[in-house]
């Protein structure tokens, strides 16, 4: 599972992530756009509120099932052979590092049709190309309903470019995630 979000993302993830039940087998990789000049506090924010284990990505960590990985500030997150987490300090994409496109494209390459990609609220188009890559690889694409998003731009941009399997409110996305085996 890969999730990308920007403006309004913490609030959106606060609805989704705590809803994931113990026993969820899949790993989750999340890029939330962050200020580049200070460490991320996402793990402190989400760890106490989630049944699943929450960790900040470090280079070469083996991917564990049922774990939520957040991209750290000022690094791109990729999924490498293993599977392992991989980081990069290559140029920002759509002014973003971490970039949603980088994560989604890398995950699409590694997981192919076993991937579910979710684009949430955000004010820039990072994620549009990434979601398209998920679709091309045969994965499932989900976009937060722009009407319900704090910042609809990211979702609208994704919708205009790629066929999307599900357009849902946050509650709908949470329900979808809990039905996965």
């Amino acid at each position, binding site marked *: 599972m890969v999730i990308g979000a920007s403006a309004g993302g913490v609030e959106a993830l606060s609805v989704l992530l705590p809803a994931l039940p113990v026993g969820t087998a899949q790993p989750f990789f999340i890029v939330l756009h962050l200020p580049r000049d200070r460490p991320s506090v996402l793990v402190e924010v989400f760890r106490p509120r989630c049944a699943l284990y929450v960790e900040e990505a*470090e*280079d070469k960590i083996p991917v564990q099932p049922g774990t939520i990985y957040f991209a750290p500030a000022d690094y791109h997150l990729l999924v*490498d052979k293993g599977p392992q987490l991989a980081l990069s300090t290559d140029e920002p994409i759509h002014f973003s590092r971490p970039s949603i496109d980088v994560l989604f*494209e890398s995950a699409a390459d590694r997981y192919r049709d076993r991937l579910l990609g979710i684009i949430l609220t955000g004010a820039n188009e990072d994620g549009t190309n990434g979601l398209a890559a998920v679709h091309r690889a045969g994965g499932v694409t989900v976009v937060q309903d722009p009407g319900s998003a704090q910042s609809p731009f990211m979702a609208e941009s994704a919708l205009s470019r790629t066929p999307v399997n599900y357009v849902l409110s946050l509650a709908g996305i949470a329900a979808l995630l809990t039905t996965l085996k």
Partner: protein
Amino acid sequence: MDAQVSVSDFEIELQLLIDAIYLKYHYDFRGYAEASLKRRLATAMLRVGCASLSQLQDRVLREPETFSVVLDFLTVPVSDRFRDPHFFRSLRESVVPLLRTYPSLKVWIAGCSTGEEVYSLAILLREEGLLERTLIYATDINPQVLKKAEAGVFELSRMAGFTENHQRSGARSSLSDYYTAAYGGAVFDKTLKQHVVFSDHSLATDSVFAEVQLVLCRNVLIYFRRELQDRALGLFREALCRRGFLGIGSKETLRFSAHADGFDELVREHRIYQKKEAS
């Protein structure tokens, strides 16, 4: 292993291209991490105007200029390496006091790229009164990039960010004391460079060349697979003097390395390590 792993054409061509580069130009990318390598080569392919890696390989073999372009994509992350004031502050507070005890200092910056970290460190050492007794070895595999680093000219537009980071790292002086505006850019004080030797070096193929008190290798290891990381860390371990210091990138880790037991964590948060006594 049950099912046969299907390998894409791109992956096949990637392997062939990496082999071609090694055979023709003797740059060894065979130990690089796959995900970032794929991404960089896909970008290089598009920018050079090739429709496939096989086409790119054809041009790389026949056109050294094209190889040079590809080499840049593989070795120069266009990143703001004046970043990370937290690391430099930590270096200043935790490592510099210990470096003072050495009558002469050698530092190795492995993968120095276009030199931002070299000048950042030289300035820090000068402020601390240590530069005069220090020799910095700044190495990289890309000769173009070494030339740039040696020139020490940076875009003026980047200086504001650098100045801010400089202040935030606990600097005692103003960054503008160390550069002048010339040649359309910011030129660093020549006397900083007098303490730096810029040199070609490959962590994949070359050996240790000096004993040093401090090694900085930040956000380079992320591009290597584990075996190559271990090779590089082995070089650092060998190069470091007794109780010498190693600084790596803020989200890099020694945890999964064969050399994890050779180092103590000195400042865990900023990934500064100290070589163990009996190492």
